[in-house]
């Protein structure tokens, strides 16, 4: 049943995947002027330009170019870096774990922050505590994630030196130690969104007929919150995180640069500054694959959590 559901979702993603490859492929054609001179520099030799055009197939008709692009893609070939003596696929693979752990750690931490605060805010709705939490989450909506990171570095790196402020650390616990502040930064920057929708959905649930019935039966408030409130809150959290996955993944690009983490985002920005087009193109593609797969995971989790969704 679940497998059939996943299969159907995968099938629906096929047109999106085609669109993504089209956009990534055509991105090189959006560069004003000649891409070869843009990326190799204005003083590039004729042979280097010819080699670049050959490598990227720019001297062939566009549909043929796209076909070659797809063909190479299916063989796991994302091209060669112009700057590093390495294939893009290899560079991307070595850096993917850093970005994925940042993503997962940030998402988990945001749930840990948002659910209790949303529960307090919803249960004490209208009180001063609720007002404070709501004000803080509204203020949080306008905080640039890199500024949150910098502020955390000032607080936990300089004033109270508790955590490392840059790098990836060595060994498992070294990684955990080094990733805490970056994950916290991501968590703080997406928590306001999560908190606001969780609060609304919890208030809806607590005001619903079935909660009124449970109260009338004499079920105590704690059980109601844990049994009815959190199951629904979890469903809402999954869908809010799912909708914001694009922001979350994009946020890692910025945060990796704040904390000097050797992930995909940092590679993307340095490659942009080096004008290393193949890497930028490859990373854009990988990021969209991550987003598409997360949408799938969100749908499946949602279906598993909410019995009303038919598989």
């Amino acid at each position, binding site marked *: 049943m679940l497998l059939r559901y996943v299969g159907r979702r995968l099938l629906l993603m096929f*047109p*999106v995947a085609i*669109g*993504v490859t*089209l*956009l990534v492929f055509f*991105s*090189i054609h*959006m*560069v*004003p002027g000649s891409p070869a001179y843009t990326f190799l520099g204005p003083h590039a030799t004729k042979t280097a330009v010819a080699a670049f055009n050959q490598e990227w197939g720019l001297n062939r008709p566009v549909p043929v170019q796209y076909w070659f692009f797809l063909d190479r893609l299916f063989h796991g070939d994302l091209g060669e870096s112009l700057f590093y003596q390495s294939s893009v696929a290899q560079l991307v693979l070595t850096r993917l774990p850093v970005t994925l752990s940042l993503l997962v750690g940030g998402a988990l931490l945001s749930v840990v922050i948002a659910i209790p605060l949303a529960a307090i805010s919803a249960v004490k709705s209208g009180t001063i505590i609720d007002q404070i939490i709501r004000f803080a989450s*509204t*203020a949080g*909506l*306008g*905080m*640039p*994630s*890199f*500024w949150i990171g*910098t*502020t955390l*570095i*000032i607080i936990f790196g*300089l004033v109270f030196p508790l955590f490392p402020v840059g790098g990836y650390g060595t060994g498992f616990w070294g990684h955990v130690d080094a990733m805490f502040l970056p994950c916290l930064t991501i968590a703080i920057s997406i928590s306001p969104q999560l908190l606001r929708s969780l609060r609304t959905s919890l208030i809806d649930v607590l005001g619903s007929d079935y909660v009124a019935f449970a109260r009338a039966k004499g079920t105590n408030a704690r059980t109601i919150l844990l049994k009815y409130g959190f199951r629904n809150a979890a469903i809402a959290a999954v869908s809010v995180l799912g909708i914001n*996955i*694009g*922001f*979350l*993944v*994009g*946020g890692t*690009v*910025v945060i990796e*640069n704040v904390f000097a983490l050797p992930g995909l985002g940092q590679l*993307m*920005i340095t490659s*942009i*500054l080096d004008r290393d087009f193949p890497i*930028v193109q490859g*990373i*854009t593609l990988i*990021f*969209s694959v991550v*987003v*598409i797969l997360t*949408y799938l995971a969100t749908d499946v989790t949602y279906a598993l959590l909410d019995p009303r969704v038919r598989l």
Partner: protein
Amino acid sequence: MSDLELDFDLTPSVVRKRQLRRPPTTLIVGGSIIGVIIVLAIFAPLVTSYNPTTINLLQTLQGPSAAHWLGTDQLGRDIWTRLVYGARTDLSVAFIAVLAPFAIGTVLGAFAGYLGGWLDNVIMRVADVVVAFPFYVLVILLVFLLGPGTSSIYIAITVVSWISYARIIRGSTLVVKNQEYVLAAQLEGFSTLRIILRHILPNVISQAIVFAMADIVNDILAIVTLGYLGLGIPPPAPDWGEMMASGQQFLTTHWELSTIPGIAVVITGLGLSLFGDGLNELMGRN
């Protein structure tokens, strides 16, 4: 009996007038914050006597004083001045950046929702593809491909953010198009364009306007983030993102350099978010 009499008094127009007398607190507070910032930005030359780009290497990294309220940066420029002129740059870019996605998304969303069929399919599939890219990744890629500069920022933000407007407007158009007044307009034989412009849009646009407030916050964040990554508004124009980025080199000795512009962004974002929440409440009442 008295209750009944009261009910007769409360005609919809009376209720509406009473409610309009008390706008939501969030709307007032948010509006005031934004108002003050906009006034400061517009009258920047009157608020400060310094030039935001004049370098004074004899007075670098000074603390707050009577001459420099918030001190000076690593090039001796007055921080308060750069903050006020930075508001000018960032707010005007953000407010302009929201216009094209708003217009394009609203029109496409209304047509997709009203006409349905292949047009709806094409627009929504394109939206699915754009959404498959992380927001910042696509914006950074586009700015990289088009070259840094304000026009690249406008294009990148437009490409990415028309989708939210299109989805919001399409959703409410699907509801509104089955209302009796739309069916009546169809029976009158009005053209599709007229029905969409005169009958559909006025009833669905308020949600897009509320969303636009949240979207301006996103655009400000995107602009300062691009500035932080060195892909934003080109120097020496004062930009909060660039201020925070260059302040980061002095984090151990002068942390205020990157903290102050951040606080400016947070206050601006807070004002716009509160204003948006208030607007939402106001529209909900009506």
